[in-house]
């Protein structure tokens, strides 16, 4: 357990030093929200109806960028090999890396959400807290599958391209559930969202468990 905390702490310290991952994620997500906002401004589309989708597109792409950056730090100087040499199981290493990536995604989410509220003229109320909760769950699912995919894609020639190519199809169910659950909160009379939340939680557990079991094979040279 101590080793897991050490890896998480190291990831946070390295990020605080270079600020590469978080700044890239946040800037990219803001750009997506702004572009969507302008794109639908004059079309007469109800912005509230598309807001949940826009939010999750921003979250998903920011997460992909963050996972890419996070792995790049471990590939620099082959630091990942240094971690693999340490006396901890591949499962523990996976948990540590997922936790590190998840923390960065949460921080990004906490910065992006208020901007999303402002851009879409929403209210800062209890519903927003619930959206934050859905965000936490969705981000955990994305981090769990994204961490193993980033390691797998690192073994390919076009790793920056392979990460989204592998991750987007696999996280579509997560994004659909998260968008539906978010829409249930933000759009009046949209309908009940608890079943979508249950499915989202189910996907998160399955992704975490499967990725935990497969990580050993993913890191094999």
């Amino acid at each position, binding site marked *: 357990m101590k080793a897991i905390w050490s890896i998480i702490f190291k990831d946070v310290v390295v990020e605080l*030093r270079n600020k590469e991952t978080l700044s890239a994620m946040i800037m990219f997500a803001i750009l997506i929200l702004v572009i969507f906002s302008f794109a639908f401004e004059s079309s007469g589309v109800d912005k509230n109806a598309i807001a949940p989708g826009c939010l999750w597109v921003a979250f998903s792409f920011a997460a992909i960028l963050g996972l890419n950056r996070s792995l790049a730090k471990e590939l620099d100087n082959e630091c990942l090999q240094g971690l693999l*040499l340490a*006396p901890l199981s591949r499962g523990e290493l996976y948990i540590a890396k997922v936790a590190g990536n998840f923390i960065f995604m949460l921080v990004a989410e906490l910065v992006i959400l208020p901007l999303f509220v402002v851009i879409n003229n929403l209210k800062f109320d209890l519903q927003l807290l619930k959206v934050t909760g859905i965000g936490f769950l969705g981000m955990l699912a994305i981090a769990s599958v994204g961490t193993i995919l980033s390691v797998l894609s690192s073994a390919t020639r076009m790793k920056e391209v392979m990460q989204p190519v592998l991750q987007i199809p696999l996280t579509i169910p997560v994004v659909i559930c998260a968008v539906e659950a978010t829409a249930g909160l933000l759009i009046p009379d949209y309908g009940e969202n608890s079943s979508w939340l249950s499915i989202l939680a189910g996907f998160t557990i399955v992704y975490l468990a499967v990725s935990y079991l497969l990580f050993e094979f993913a890191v094999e040279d």
Partner: protein
Amino acid sequence: MSATFALRAEDVRKTFGHFTALAGVTLDVKRGEFLTLFGRNGAGKTTFLKIAATLMRATHGKLWIEGIDIREQPEETRRHIGFLSHNTYLYRDLNPVENLRFFAQLYGVSNAEERIRSLLDRVGLKRRASDPVRAFSRGLHQRVGIARVMLHEPSLILLDEPYTGLDANAAETLTTMLQENVAAGRTVILTTHDLEQGLRSATRAAIIDRGKIVFAAPGNDPTVREAYDQFIRVGLTR
């Protein structure tokens, strides 16, 4: 499995698709031995060390480190191993102390701060202990890498071309540190192309060629040079 051997390899093979990197390595290394493994580029030296360090899985065969089957207890095996390759596995945004502190935590090193100070002093980096590693030259990187390998006092030290990039002073320090470790009963396996450097401390020398151990003899045996000429110098033109 007898614990008098620091490493036992039994018909270890590794293939990458159609390419055979190791064609069946069988090797025993006793505790306290300093084995230098010579070989041409692509002979299988690095692959063998990576398998021994549990970074790679053998396609076939068995390998024990300190009597432990590396497949059955990889985590326990890794506690006994210190591995240095061409890359030092250091985080460029952290300074040497932070890097070593991180690895000390991973290995559960007690009295870590004292050990880090003493190792950095030993490799001549005490005055640059607070500079980020990104500002270091290749040689300085390698010095911190050496400190990282020695940090948890491994009983088996695996070194893949460790002298690359080191100046004469640092190379001398590394040689002395390795000799001290062998004197303390630890085992060293080093790979190199450089015959003179490799034989300086070796108690045994072996040559790996096309994925097989083709020669092994005591380090001071005159046949080592002949075998080196036969398999490596001539091998270059083969």
